[in-house]
């Protein structure tokens, strides 16, 4: 929370402050809590929203462009690179990505490159290429250039796993001021709190911004098992071993020939 406030403050201080607002965004999410149960195979959330004049009788100025950035709980990941050593492929070099989103979706109604100028996109961290992905480099933590091989590989692997994505067709307009966006959550979606940041652009400038949130929780049996494994490892192991013995004993009783 403090971090988000900090980013907001930086954005405000560095001239990201949007002009005297003429528009206002009102958004609503189809579901604020997603439960991952044993039958969970992914889910599409729908975000509806309207663009309204901030004060009555202010004229709206379509066309508008929208960028919705959904970020999952932070996690630290290591990207490893294999190299050939004595004929076999071995993990040699690795980089740590510190507190990066475990899930990141950048959804827009058209390619982000067409929505605003590159420096605006960079300042507002819009798009996978512009999102801040801090790496631990020696004692420092910093983002690298966007064509750094580890950064490229990290984005590519996360995209392959369905956890990172950028879509320029996910936001559709129902009328020039009413829109809907599909937020895809894959089956392996991490649990935790998600932040949804909706930015409205007109003529390449940010004109309105709003936030909402959602929560992904493991529900029922899965949660119970995962918690038990993490918090009571020894007991969990003993129970699993006992379960193995019971299964084995049961089979020998059922299939006994004499």
């Amino acid at each position, binding site marked *: 929370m403090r971090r988000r406030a900090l980013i907001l403050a930086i954005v405000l201080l560095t001239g990201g402050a949007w002009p005297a607002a003429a528009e206002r965004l009102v958004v609503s999410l189809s579901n604020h809590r997603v439960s*991952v149960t*044993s*039958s*969970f*195979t992914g889910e599409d959330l729908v975000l509806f929203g309207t663009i309204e004049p901030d004060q009555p009788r202010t004229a709206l100025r379509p066309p508008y462009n929208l960028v919705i950035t959904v970020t999952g*709980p*932070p*996690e*630290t*990941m*290591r*990207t*490893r*690179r*294999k*190299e050939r050593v004595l*004929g*076999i*492929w*071995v*993990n040699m070099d*690795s980089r*740590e990505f510190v*507190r990066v989103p475990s899930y990141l979706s950048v959804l827009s109604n058209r390619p982000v490159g067409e929505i605003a100028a590159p420096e605006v996109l960079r300042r507002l961290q819009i798009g996978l290429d512009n999102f801040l992905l801090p790496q631990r480099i020696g004692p420092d933590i910093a983002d690298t250039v966007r064509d750094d091989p*580890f950064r490229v*590989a*990290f984005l*590519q*692997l*996360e995209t392959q*796993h369905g956890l990172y994505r950028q879509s320029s067709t996910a936001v559709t307009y129902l009328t020039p001021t009413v829109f809907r966006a599909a937020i895809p959550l894959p*089956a*392996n979606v991490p649990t*935790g709190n998600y932040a949804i940041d909706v930015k409205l652009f007109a003529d390449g400038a940010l004109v309105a911004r709003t936030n909402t949130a959602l929560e992904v929780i*493991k529900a029922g*049996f*899965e*949660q119970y*098992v*995962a918690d038990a*494994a993490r918090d009571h*490892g*020894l007991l*969990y*192991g*003993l*129970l*699993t*071993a006992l*379960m*193995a*013995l019971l*299964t*084995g*004993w*049961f*089979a*020998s009783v059922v*299939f006994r020939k*004499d």
Partner: protein
Amino acid sequence: MQIYLPIADLPVNIFLVLGMGLAVGFISGMFGIGGGFLMTPLLIFIGISPAVAVASVSSHIAASSFTGAITYWRKRALDTALAMMLLSAGIVGTACGVWLFTVLRSLDQLDLMIGLSYVTLLTAVGVTMIYESVQAELRTRKGMPATLRRPGSHTWLHGLPFKLRFKRSKIYVSAIPVWAIGFIIGFVGAIMGIGGGFLLVPMLIYFLRVPTATVIGTSMVLTLITMASATVMHAATNHLVDAVLALILMVGGVIGAQFGARTGARMRGERLRLLLGLLVFAVGLRFAYELVVQPDDLFSLRHVGSG
């Protein structure tokens, strides 16, 4: 039908996993082995991380070897004293294996180590088994009796001190090789997610001259206890045992094993060993291929921590 695995953190098709359990169970029943060396690679192949696969398979092997051990116990075909002796070293080996597993995981070299161990062990054991069974086959063709146990033939192993007598197996050997074998099996099992039955049985026969009557039952008791303790240790230290995955595998495994055992009973010993040797060798080659051929993606990701 998809089911979500809580520790592996991914959904799998329950029938696919059950089918794998059945198939591996069939093979394990047929050859009298745990089948971990087949199950672990299969799980890795369907996308479960090697670490979770190794840790979860240990409980699956515990279940199938318990079924086997009960059967041999009823037939009084196991040497409890020998099993206990092997075991005392086996547990130490398992603890060392789990410790090394944890260290390698933090160094990002666990997958490599698992791969290398599979290549070395499986190709070596596979080649030995193929060679030995072809020799036996040739000997029977020539009308010579194939004997594995040659009473009275002593090796340097029999000259070692701390001799012990194992009544049921009718052997009188030093405690040192018994301990060494137990330790190796426990250690290798914890790292590779294998029970080690396919290693232990030949070792007991060739090095300790344990008679065939008690060897499989004894090996199953050892496998049972090392794998059950590996399950507990992996769960307590690495939190990687997926109980849901293990349960599905167990159910498939114990059923498959019953049918496998019936098929195996109808085949000749040498033929079985040749088949098993070929299977072991093929899995070894598969791992070698993976290590040598350039991977599709040189990069891989690993979760280091939340926050």
